[in-house]
């Protein structure tokens, strides 16, 4: 029985920021921090909607197309 992946409901945006920022080499100052936390929460809300779509569990149909041999 295929299972739909879930986007966990709980998302601690502050903890996520503190963990991820150094991993990607970012330093988030106190001016940006509150807004970035809000934006991470917004992105999580968007991800929850994206994960609610019942996709074919056996296919990975990505939108962009890679054309071998094409020079650009």
């Amino acid at each position, binding site marked *: 029985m295929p299972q739909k992946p879930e986007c966990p409901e709980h998302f601690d945006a502050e903890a996520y920021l503190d963990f991820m920022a150094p991993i990607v080499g970012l330093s988030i100052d106190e001016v940006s921090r509150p807004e970035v936390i809000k934006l991470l929460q917004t992105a999580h809300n968007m991800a929850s909607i994206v994960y609610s*779509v019942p*996709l074919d569990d056996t296919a990975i149909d*990505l939108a*962009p197309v890679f054309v071998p041999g094409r020079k*650009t």
Partner: protein
Amino acid sequence: MKPAICFHSAEELARSVHKGVHNAADIIETFIQRIEVTNSSLNAYTHLTIEWAREKARALDQCRKQGGEPGPLAGVPFAVKNLFDVEGEITLAGSEINLENPAAQQDALLIQRLERAGAILLGSLNMGEYAYDFTGENAHFGNCHNPWNLGHMSGGSSSGSGAATAAGIAPISLGSDTNGSIRVPSSLCGIFGLKPTYGCLPRSGSYPFCDSLDHLGPMARTTRDLALSFDALQGFDAEDHACVDKPKLHTLDELDKGIDNLRIARAGGYFINRDFPQAMAAVERVCDLLDVTEVLDIPGAEAGRSAAFLITNMESSSLHLPRLQNRPQDYDPDTRDRFLAGAMLPAAWYLRAQRVRHWYHQQVLALFEHVDVLIAPATPCTAPRIGEKILSINGQPQPLRPNLGYFTQPISAIGLPVCAVPTIDEESGMPIGVQVIAAPWREDLCLRVATHLESQGLQAPLPTGIAID
């Protein structure tokens, strides 16, 4: 020459040059004078190519006098969002950081194509930093003001394109649209704007924002001007890997075919939201003019919009990561924080978003077996005041900046062609646009329906916030 000529259509201007009624040089001088008077209050142009324009106009007049064919856009001034390369100038993309870049070696391909058709470049136009914007606000180069009311937003990110074309200082302008950046300023400034199918117009020589979703397109005061410019802009270019090699459409020849044999429906579901009465009234007016009664739900629209949100956030942040790491203080704070958040999101969300985009595309393609054209709002409201931050959606306060694209983002998410058509909100007297949407590669249908609406009175109105003469 009277300044009122600045509100003539591009087609009329070109015809007057062809007939020898006006010289291109005189037209260019008239526009330069109007820009000098008007731009200080609008802040639409960030750079003028005056000497270049004068030289091109003189050459064009000489060519015509010697019996040459000056092209379908002969002597028509145009301007471009400042993310288009202009030879010898730095491509700003609305950013102070880019001031350190070398000047462009050549014009963007779409500029070259308009010039081959006889149009004359007048300069570059203001925009939101790196195109991550729907407001027209810019911390570096100043806000772009709405010609209907200078205290209100022009819309963005093609802010200068919307304001300049509405204000009669660029009969044709070029913009870019990733999630609504042609359609939002078209809506808020009261002009027509065409966002073609994804992969239709090559992006060669333009500064990128989000590769999966970036489109370029024209903005104008009439549908015939949109068609004239779109027909001149089309053509494959291998330099843009998303560009698709398809036969060109001749949309100008299609405009007057009417709407009798077209199946037109109003977009329902996500696109009907009573929190946005101005947008609902605009759509109802358009549907009345088209005798549209059918309402069709767009399956997956909210998921498609969410996918576009994540794809944009993550691709653009990846593009900017080196600068976000080393000099975040040099960004406009409103864009910087969005890039910072996008740079940290998990890859699984991005890949899921690309799969959902593919799925949503399939859903909507099936819908187009039953309908030719869909009508939807372009913006939730008329132009907000500059500085406004909040928009109420479903009773909840939401940030205004990303949500001005609430209705445009689900359409560009899957690359559908759209023409924004202007209407006037009766209560406020401010413009608000409606989207005319067709299946991929059917820009001709968008423009046909837009032309019909124009013939029914939905013409680009003269703005009330600036002097016309």
